[in-house]
């Protein structure tokens, strides 16, 4: 079966800095794929390249065999890739429901239909009780949940999550992990950047490791945890998070 998303030698440079150095990878339909690496390894840059906010300097990106390299963020959303941001970017002055409606309007012109869909999504993500609140008044965990709801409302085939668990407490992290699993159950492929090791190790089917813009490992979590190069580059002194 062809990959849902395929990157071929994608590079992105900022001046002399090579943020992404000839990265090739595949995301399979229905999997939860993790992307980890030390700060500045190029994880967010790679997400920006996939979602169209950056144009790669070289290399090509395919979604279901169709090339999407260099397309605009709005076109890529149209193709079915949704994303969240490292620092939440919800529409603060809008209610929770209206935020989600904006996402749902991608697939329908009718506000009524979008509203129905948005309510369903909020029920799924557990925000329905708070749907009339202003987004600005939510807790951090709920803001992240809202951003996720909004992305889900666009009916994506692939969801890019950029550090959705940063800043959450253990209980909230557990809920987030459950939610990510539930999203996969809905048939949506999830590609997630995360720093919270215990979470990513348990939730992902496979993990890709970046270091200084290069891909240094691509394996199942158990092997990643024991991979020499990964430990050297990154995990060595940092894998205390679980404790």
């Amino acid at each position, binding site marked *: 079966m062809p990959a849902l998303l395929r990157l071929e030698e994608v590079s992105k440079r900022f001046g002399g800095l090579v943020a992404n150095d000839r990265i090739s990878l595949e995301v399979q339909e229905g999997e939860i794929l993790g992307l980890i690496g030390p700060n500045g390894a190029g994880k967010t840059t790679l997400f920006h390249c996939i979602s169209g906010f950056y144009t790669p300097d070289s290399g090509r990106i395919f979604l279901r065999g169709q090339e999407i390299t260099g397309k605009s*963020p*709005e076109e890529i*959303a149209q193709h079915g890739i949704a994303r969240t941001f490292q620092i939440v970017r919800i529409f603060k002055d809008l209610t929770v429901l*209206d935020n989600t409606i*904006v996402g749902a*309007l*991608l697939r329908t012109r*009718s506000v009524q239909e*979008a509203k129905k869909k948005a309510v369903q999504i909020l029920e799924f993500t557990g925000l329905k009780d708070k749907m009339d609140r202003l987004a600005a008044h939510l807790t951090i965990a709920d803001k992240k949940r809202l951003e996720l709801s909004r*992305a889900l409302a666009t009916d994506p085939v692939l969801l890019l999550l950029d550090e959705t668990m940063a800043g959450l407490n253990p209980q909230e992290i557990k809920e987030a992990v459950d939610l990510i699993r539930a999203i996969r159950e809905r048939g949506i492929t999830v590609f997630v950047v995360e720093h919270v090791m215990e979470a990513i190790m348990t939730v992902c089917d496979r993990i890709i490791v970046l270091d200084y813009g290069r891909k240094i490992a691509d394996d199942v979590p158990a092997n990643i945890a024991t991979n020499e190069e990964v430990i050297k580059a990154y995990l060595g002194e940092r894998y205390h998070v679980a404790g």
Partner: protein
Amino acid sequence: MTQELARRSISENLSRWGKVLLGVILAAFLLGYPFVFTGPFPQHLMIRIFLFAALAQAWNILGGYCGQISLGHAVFFGIGAYTSTILLIYWHLSPWLGMVVGVLLSLVATLLIGYPTFRLAGHYFAIATIAVGEIARVLVTNWPFAGGAVGLYVPLLPEGLRTFEFHTTKVPYYYISLLLLLAVTTTTWFLERSRAGYYFRAIKADPDAARSLGIPIHRYKLLALAISGAFTAMGGTFYAQYVLYIDPESVLPLMLSVIICLVAVLGGVGTLWGPILGALVLIPLSEGTRVYLAGMGGAGRAFDLIVYGALIVLMSVFEPTGLIGLWRRIQRALEVRVSYARLAAARRGEQTVRGPGSQ
């Protein structure tokens, strides 16, 4: 539970019969006004309120909902005024058709202005629109065909709806301007509830997040500018036919763009009633100072601007959401008071019911 009931009561009771009644009274007042106030000044005042409320409402679509602050809307006003007047002078075209052509030209201007300037974010867009407005003013000032700095007189024709000229009464102008305000307000009402309205607010709140949700922000900004500019152009034609004289200093000055923006900002941007509220407060203020302070130096002309400035400072310090925010605050205070009163009443009721039985 009683508390919740009490809190809901005001807006809910108002939302049924109150709103209908309020609507009927408002409609009767608006329709009957020129027959009650037959003098030229009260009528002129109302016409200016309607005109500026309409202009601010049009500005609000782009600036309030979509978040693109324009300080060059006089360009569209000027296009409307000059197009209908030039077509009338040189080709004897009815001003009504001139208004249509003005709207079409405003759409062309939308593309010319919007395409390059919408690449600029935030304040830079506002600055660019100032430049566009000034360029238009200087061009027209140096264009003899359009009357240059001297301006153009709208040819006097027999009065009537067909010629869009009335010399002996202001009443038709009153209803036409009311209609214009109604049209742009209704459009805004529909926009608020449409996909475009949601997209405008999303673009205002966070353009990048909007793009990640598949919103072609460029196209929607152009749409907002097109609707906004079209209504502003209609206002320009109306102004030309009302005053029957236009020059760059009256229909293209930067001050006009600023005042249109101020009316909306003071009233409350991104709300349906804000621009109307703003016009209701600001226009009588400026007309009043102009009339009553005419004896002072400069015929009291700049005085309204001083008051505007003071109001802006006060509003941005105490109520940045505009008059509409002030109104909402008053409404909330009233609701709290009512809910307290009801709570107290409910408690007294409980006591009296319980009273005889318990002892």
